[in-house]
C-alpha cells in the first residue's frame, strides 16, 4: 500500500479512537474498541461504504456556489459541476491551466473523507482518483476486495467527478452575452476557486513567511539580508554578472479581504472551508487625481508642491541605469529619456491636483507665485493659458532645470555630472510634451 494511503487510514483510526474511547476504559474495553476500529477502517469495510458515499460530493474546479451560495440546486436538478481541462499556454493570462492548483469540491461535507481519499497524491504525482480512472495497477490492487467488485467500487468513486449528462446553469449564476460572428454566445461565469485559494496562499507567504520577517528586520536595522529571497529574482541579471549581491523581499499593499459563505464557509466548497471562507483580492485601482491635503503653493510650485523626493525612485533608477551601464548606446539613451518623461508625468499629475484646489485656495492678494506659475496653475487663467505661449516656454525651462538639478541634488557626490548638452537634451524632452502643461 502506498504510504500516503496508510497514513490516511492511520489518521482516521486515531481520530475514531479518540472520539470513542472514554478515559478510564479498562483493558478489555480498549481491545474491543480497537478491534471495532480496525474492522471499520479495513479496506473490506471502508471501501464499499466510501464508494457509496462518493456521489454526495462533486469535484469541481469551478464550483457554482462562489457565484451564489444557493445556486447549486434548482428545479432542473444540480448546476453542472465543471471540471475544466484547461491547457497551459503562454498567452499572458491568469486563468485555469496557467497555474497548477488543486481541484475543489462541493456537496455534503459528510463525504469529505472520501474526497480526501480520492485526492491523495500517489508517488508518481497523480491522484488516486486518476489512477482509478485509468484502471492502473495500483488502483486495481487497492480496490481488490472480497466484499465488492472492482467495477462497482470504481463506479461509486467516479460518481464524485460525474455530473449529469445535461448541462445545467442557474439564474443565480451571472450569465453574460458575448458577441460572436453571427450573434451571441451566452456565458455562465464561474470562479476558478483553486486559483483563488492558491493566490491567498502565495499572498500569505509573502506577508507572513519567516523569510519575510527576517528580511523586514534587516531592513529596519539597515543590515544586509541574505536569503533565498523571492524579490531578487527579477534582478537575477545582477547576480549573474556578479556585479553586486542583492537581497530583498516583496510587499503587497492595498489588499482587500472578502468572505464567501459568511458563518458557513462549508456551504460554498471544501477549499473555501479550509480557508475559513476568506480570500484576498489584488488591487486594480487607477491613480488618484483627487487627494486630501493638497495645498496650493503660495511662493513656488517646485519647492512647496513638488520636490525632488517625490521622484526619488526615478532619480535613483536613472542613476543605476547610467552607473551600471558605462555605455551610451541607443538603448540606454532611450531608457534615459523614459525616465525624464516619467518625472515630467509626475509633475503633470501634481499640476492637476494643485489646479483642482486653486479656486478654493488661491489668494491673489497674498500670493507670491511668479507670473508663469500663476498662469500655469490657476483655474481662473485658463483662457490665458490657451492663448499665450511665453509662459509655457519659461515653464519648460524651469522644469528642465528641476530635472537637471534634481539629479545632482538627490544623488549628491555619487552623481555623474551632467553636461550642458544633457541639459539641452532634457529641455528637448520637456518641450516634446509641453502641450500637456497647458
Amino acid at each position, binding site marked *: 500500500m502506498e504510504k500516503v494511503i496508510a497514513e490516511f487510514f492511520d489518521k482516521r483510526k486515531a481520530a475514531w479512537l479518540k472520539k470513542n474511547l472514554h478515559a478510564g476504559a479498562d483493558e478489555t474495553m480498549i481491545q474491543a474498541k480497537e478491534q471495532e476500529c480496525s474492522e471499520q477502517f479495513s479496506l473490506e469495510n471502508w471501501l464499499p461504504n466510501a464508494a457509496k458515499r462518493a456521489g454526495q460530493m462533486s469535484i469541481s474546479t469551478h464550483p457554482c456556489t462562489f457565484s451564489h451560495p444557493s445556486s447549486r440546486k434548482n428545479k432542473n436538478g444540480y448546476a453542472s459541476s465543471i471540471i475544466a481541462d484547461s491547457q497551459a499556454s503562454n498567452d499572458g493570462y491568469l486563468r485555469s491551466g496557467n497555474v497548477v492548483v488543486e481541484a475543489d469540491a462541493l456537496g455534503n461535507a459528510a463525504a469529505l473523507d472520501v474526497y480526501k481519499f480520492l485526492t491523495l497524491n500517489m508517488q508518481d504525482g497523480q491522484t488516486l482518483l486518476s489512477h482509478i480512472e485509468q484502471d492502473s495497477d495500483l488502483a486495481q490492487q487497492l480496490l481488490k476486495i472480497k466484499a465488492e467488485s472492482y467495477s462497482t467500487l470504481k463506479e461509486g468513486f467516479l460518481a464524485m467527478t460525474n455530473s449529469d449528462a445535461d448541462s*445545467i446553469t442557474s439564474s443565480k449564476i451571472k450569465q453574460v452575452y458575448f458577441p460572436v460572428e453571427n450573434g451571441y454566445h451566452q*456565458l455562465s461565469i464561474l470562479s476558478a476557486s483553486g486559483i483563488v485559494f492558491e493566490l491567498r496562499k502565495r499572498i500569505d507567504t509573502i506577508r507572513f513567511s519567516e523569510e519575510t520577517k527576517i528580511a523586514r528586520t534587516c531592513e529596519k536595522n539597515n543590515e544586509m539580508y541574505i536569503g533565498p529571497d523571492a524579490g531578487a529574482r527579477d534582478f537575477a541579471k545582477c547576480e549573474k554578472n556578479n556585479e553586486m549581491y*542583492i*537581497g530583498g523581499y516583496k510587499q503587497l499593499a492595498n489588499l482587500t479581504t472578502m468572505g464567501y459563505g459568511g458563518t458557513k464557509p462549508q456551504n460554498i466548497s471544501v477549499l473555501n472551508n479550509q480557508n475559513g471562507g476568506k480570500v484576498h*483580492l489584488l488591487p486594480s485601482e487607477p491613480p488618484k487625481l483627487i487627494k486630501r491635503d493638497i495645498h496650493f503653493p503660495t511662493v513656488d510650485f517646485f519647492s512647496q508642491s513638488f520636490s525632488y523626493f517625490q521622484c526619488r525612485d526615478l532619480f535613483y533608477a536613472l542613476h543605476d541605469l547610467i552607473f551600471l551601464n558605462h555605455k551610451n548606446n541607443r538603448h540606454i539613451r532611450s531608457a534615459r529619456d*523614459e*525616465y525624464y518623461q516619467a518625472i515630467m508625468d509626475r509633475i503633470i499629475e501634481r499640476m492637476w491636483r494643485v489646479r483642482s484646489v486653486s479656486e478654493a485656495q488661491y489668494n491673489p492678494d497674498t500670493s507670491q507665485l511668479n507670473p508663469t506659475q500663476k498662469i500655469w496653475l490657476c483655474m481662473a487663467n485658463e483662457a490665458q493659458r490657451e492663448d499665450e505661449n511665453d509662459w509655457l516656454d519659461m515653464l519648460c525651462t524651469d522644469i528642465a532645470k528641476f530635472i537637471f538639478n534634481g539629479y545632482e541634488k538627490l544623488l549628491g557626490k555619487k552623481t555623474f555630472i551632467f553636461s550642458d548638452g544633457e541639459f539641452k537634451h532634457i529641455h528637448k524632452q520637456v518641450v516634446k510634451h509641453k502641450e500637456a502643461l497647458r
Partner: protein
Amino acid sequence: MSYKKILLIPHLHIHNANALSSPFTIGFPAMTAWLGATHALQRKLNEGGIDVKVTATGVVSHQMNLQTYRGTNDFVSSIIGTGNPLDKTGSRSSFIEEARCHLEVSLLLELQGISQEQEDAIKAQISHLLNSKIKMAGGDIQSFSPPAIFVLEDNNEEDLRRFTRKIMPGYVLIERRDLMIEAMGQGQDDAMAALIDYVAIHHRCEQTKDGVLWKKRRKSQTDKPLGWIVPIATGFHGISELGQAKNQRDPDQPHCFAESLVTLGEFKMPHRFESISDMLWCYQVDKASNFYQCVALNTVAKDPSSEFDF
C-alpha cells in the same frame, strides 16, 4: 489618409458599479463591462433606426471611489456592504459580498457607418439612452457631459492633441498583456507569479561602498520605468462545450460555462499617446483557445491570424 470618427462621452458619473472585476481582483470594472456598455448603445441606436457600428472602445478614468474600509490598525481592507434585503422571515438572506465603486470616467466610441448629417441625431439619442435606460458596469449613471464627435486623421498630431486635452486630467486604460507574456516566457514564472511580481513593491538591499542600502521599487522592464501597472479582467475563457443548458437566461443562444481572464493593464496619461488607436479596445473571439476577450485594437490589426473582429 485615413480618419477615425470618435464619439466622446465625457465625465460619466457612475454610482455603485461592480468592483469585483474577477475573483482575484477588486477595483476598476472589467474591460468587458465597458465594451458591453458601448455595444448595448450600438444595439439601441440600431433599434432606433441609426445604422451605426461601434468598432472600438476606450475608457478614461478620472476618479474612482472603491467602497472598502481599512481601520487604522488593519493591514487589509474589507468590503463595505449594502445590506441585503430581508427575506420572508425578516432575517438577512445569504449572499455573496458585493464589491462596489463610484466612478467618473470618459468613454471613447469609434463609430463607423454614419454620415456627418447623422451626428447630431446620434449625440441626442445617446444622451437620451444614458439618461433613460442604460446602466453601466452594473451601476447607475448619475450624470455626464454632452457627448461630442471628433474626427482624427491618422498621424495628425494636432488632431490628437486637440482630442487628448478633452480627456485630461485622466488615465486611459490599456492592455499590457505583453508584460505577462514576457515574464511567463522566461520559464520560471507561472501566470500568478508573473502577475504578483508586477503588483508587489520590491524591497531590496545592496552592499555599497558606503554601507547597506535598502530601496523600494516596482518591477521595471528592460531598464525602463514602468507606468501604473495593475491587474485587470479583460474577458472570459470557455471551460465547457458550447451547447444548450437548462436555466439559460436566453434559450436561443449557444451556452457555455466560462471563467475570467485576468492580465495586466496600464493606466496611462493621455499626452503619452502617439495615436488614438493605442487607446482603443475591441472584442475578439479566439475559437482555438475558447477566449472571449477584449484586446487592444492594434494587436488585432497587426495579427492576421485573428479569426475575426468587429
